[in-house]
């Protein structure tokens, strides 16, 4: 019991050294988290770190190409100058960066509802979790819808992964734009699917039976990561 107590205070190596074989054996048998968090959460973090490197590789490639074509590189405020929504004549307005700012707010808002769902999970409040997951899913779907509108608008203007429009001039701009925002969009789509599964599982009482809502926290980490990556996609393509 004493060994158990020392290990649980996170100083196993120092405190148990020289106190008999039992302590050392306990330590080396595994089952104790030096970080005091669950295995699944640690692994989710490690996955997200590796995914950060994938996104970083894309964005650094973007930076290299931009520096290699600095004179001809298109201006974001010109390329993304309209709202690609035909209703109410919105597409006729000169509104640079307005649409993408709206998309950014959707992700920020969904991050808030996600963190609230995680907090309700800490309180074992099943319907609280579901109530905050539903708007998170809706924001994710709206984000994907906005991305569809923006992509079709840009493709109609002539910017595709293999061709440049009169505004973009550099083919690589379109190429990198569709690859990077597409890769991010795939992550959002994955998040929407996982969050839907999560909401259904929570509503069915799966996590009440298990006794904790750690899965909400793990998928919450993934969802915040999607928001975090967007900060840099937004920075590289729209702000710089």
């Amino acid at each position: 019991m004493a060994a158990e107590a020392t290990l649980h205070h996170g100083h196993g190596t120092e405190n148990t050294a020289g106190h008999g074989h039992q302590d050392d054996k306990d330590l080396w048998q595994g089952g104790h988290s030096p970080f005091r968090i669950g295995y699944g959460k640690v692994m989710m973090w490690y996955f997200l770190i590796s995914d950060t490197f994938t996104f970083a590789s894309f964005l650094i490639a973007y930076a290299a190409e931009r520096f290699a074509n600095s004179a001809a590189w298109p201006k974001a405020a010109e390329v993304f100058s309209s709202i690609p929504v035909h209703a109410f004549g919105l597409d006729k307005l000169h509104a640079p960066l307005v649409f993408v700012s709206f998309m950014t707010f959707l992700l920020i808002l969904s991050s808030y509802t996600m963190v609230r769902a995680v907090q309700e999970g800490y309180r074992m409040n099943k319907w609280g979790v579901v109530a905050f997951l539903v708007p998170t899913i809706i924001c994710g779907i709206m984000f994907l819808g906005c991305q569809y509108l923006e992509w079709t608008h840009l493709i109609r203007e002539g910017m595709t992964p293999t061709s440049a429009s009169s505004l973009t001039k550099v083919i690589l701009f379109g190429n990198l734009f569709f690859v990077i925002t597409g890769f991010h969009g795939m992550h959002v789509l994955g998040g929407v699917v996982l969050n839907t599964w999560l909401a259904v599982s929570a509503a069915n009482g799966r996590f009440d039976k298990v006794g904790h809502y750690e899965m909400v926290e793990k998928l919450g980490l993934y969802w915040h990561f999607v928001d975090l990556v967007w900060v840099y996609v937004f920075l590289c393509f729209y702000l710089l």
Partner: protein
Amino acid sequence: MNFDEPVQGHLHWDDNEYSFGKKEAVRTIAILSVVTVVEVGIAISYDAFSTDGGKYKWGISLLMAIFSVIKVIFIMGTFMHLKHEKKGFILTCLLPFLFLIWAIIAFTFEGSSWEMMRGWLNAF
């Protein structure tokens, strides 16, 4: 696949933690929103009103990069709860990103070099 493996960690909050967490989440979303509005405002204003012909664009870019780092600190620290984890875990998660500092510097120089070499090749 067993998603419900036993966990070690702090998974149940009392009333104080819950109300503190709620306030912290509201504060964070407010900060993220304000920073985003300021970023977009500066980007649009610079493009619309600047008369320096892009001479000081690097300063604006630096400012935007700083704002983005601030946003990421709040997302990772508060929303992803990293600032409440053990120090060893925080370092485990953050130290690998030091490689990216090298990568950003190296590849922006590399990109500039490509442009310069293209100029030389065109001269022949």
